[in-house]
């Protein structure tokens, strides 16, 4: 499903965010991406999304080399990938409901689907009451959950989650992890960057550890460290 071949990514030619990283993730896998702050986890995820281009190496997503993808096809790639961003990336001028609906409207889902799915997914993340609030009117954790809802809503093939529980209390985190697990069981491939030792140690899934841009560990059913 996802394959990285000797991928190197440096910002401004200096900071080596990723160095000769190779890794293959199969359909339906659940992978934790761990490592200290600044080790390249977000960069890893941004490369899969084609938000950044690698300096060297090749990246395959869903069987396609995304390095050679023509730019007008990028939106179609992204529609197969749900992404929970570390900084949420909500549309500031749209309400919570509209933010989530946007992901469905982009792929041309009919109105009645939008009207059904959006409240359902917001219910799932516990934000039914905030449907008509703007993002800046939400608490940090609530914003994060909107981002999660948006990434889920169109049932993507791949789910990229960049520290999806960073702003959530333990109880809510557990709820979100259950949800991710359920989604993973329906066949969705999940790649999740996290700092939460508790979650990684409880779930016991594949763990890829980064350190200063290098993959230093790739362990099935691993723990945080």
């Amino acid at each position, binding site marked *: 499903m996802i394959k990285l071949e000797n991928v190197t990514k440096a910002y401004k030619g200096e900071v080596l965010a990723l160095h000769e990283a190779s890794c293959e993730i199969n359909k339906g896998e659940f992978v934790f991406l761990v490592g200290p702050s600044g080790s390249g986890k977000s960069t890893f995820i941004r490369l899969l*999304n084609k*938000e950044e281009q690698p300096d060297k190496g090749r990246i395959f997503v869903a069987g396609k080399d995304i390095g050679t993808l023509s*730019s*007008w096809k*990028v*939106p*179609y*790639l*992204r*529609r197969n*990938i749900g*992404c929970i*961003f570390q900084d949420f*990336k*909500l*549309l*500031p*001028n*749209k309400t919570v409901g509209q933010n989530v609906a*946007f*992901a469905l*409207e*982009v*792929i*041309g889902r009919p*109105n009645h689907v939008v009207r059904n799915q959006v409240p359902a997914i917001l219910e799932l993340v516990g934000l039914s009451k905030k449907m008509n609030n703007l993002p800046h009117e939400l608490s940090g954790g609530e914003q994060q959950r909107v981002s999660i809802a*948006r990434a889920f809503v169109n049932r993507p093939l791949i789910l990229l989650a960049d520290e999806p529980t960073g702003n959530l209390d333990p109880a809510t985190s557990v709820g979100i992890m259950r949800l991710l697990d359920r989604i993973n069981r329906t066949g969705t491939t999940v790649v999740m960057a996290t700092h939460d030792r508790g979650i990684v140690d409880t779930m016991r899934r594949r763990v890829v550890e980064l350190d200063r841009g290098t993959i230093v560990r790739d362990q099935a059913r691993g723990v945080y460290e």
Partner: protein
Amino acid sequence: MAMKANYLFRETGSNLRRNITLTLASIVTVAVSLALFGIALLLRQGVDNATQRWEGGIEFVVFMNADASAAQLQAVADALDASPEVAKITFFDQDKAFEEFKDLFEGTPELIETVQPSDLPTSFRVVPSDTDPDAVEQLASRFETSPGVREVVSAQETIRNIESLTNIASFIVLLGSVFLLAAAAALIFNTIRMAMFARRREIEVMKLVGATNWFIRLPFMVEGMIQGLLGAGVAVGAVFGANWALDRYLSDRNSLQLLESFVVATEDVWRTSFLLLVIGVIVGTLGSAIAVSRFLDV
């Protein structure tokens, strides 16, 4: 592309409402720029009108003595008729002259009171077929000595001066309106780009969620179109207002027949307005499309 019309309108509507500062800014810019351009166009039309009127008005007047006999009048009329260089003759009897007098001095009724039609001379207004001032003068001088003629007045000197004046005025106004159009385009594009700059993060996020370029661009274009339309609408209002003000200014001073020719036909105002609306819509739509493109390659 599969964009639903309902998404498009909802999106455009809420953008216009939410970014009210930017919306107003764009509308103000379009309005001010196009109003300036429109007024310049009308001014030019006015100058052209005046020139045309004055050129068409190259004529001379053969004033008859108050006591000229009917035979003398007839002789002059016949002589004028017979001249091949004469395009048109209008005979002004005393009543007609009085009518004209009243028109001219509408603003000062006390003057009209003191004048009787019989105080005014009868005259022939002659429009020569050749408007070259020298030819006109020559033609005019032929009638100076006919019996019963008091005076022949031709306005060649005036006409020459006025021609050169209107030429330069027309040139300046044309230059001004071209400059204004360029300035308007620069300002409007500028404003749209700034508005886009303020929303570049939003565009970036849309792209990351999988929106195609057209999906992002279209609402912005409709938004730009509406802003352009509204701005142009305000500009049209300003143009009508300016035209009305000029009309009033001129009619307050209508003792000067000369200036009346500056008045622009309502039809011209409408044509200019239509042009402004078209420009507003095009600049708004295309400007938005181009400005948004800068932020589309994420």
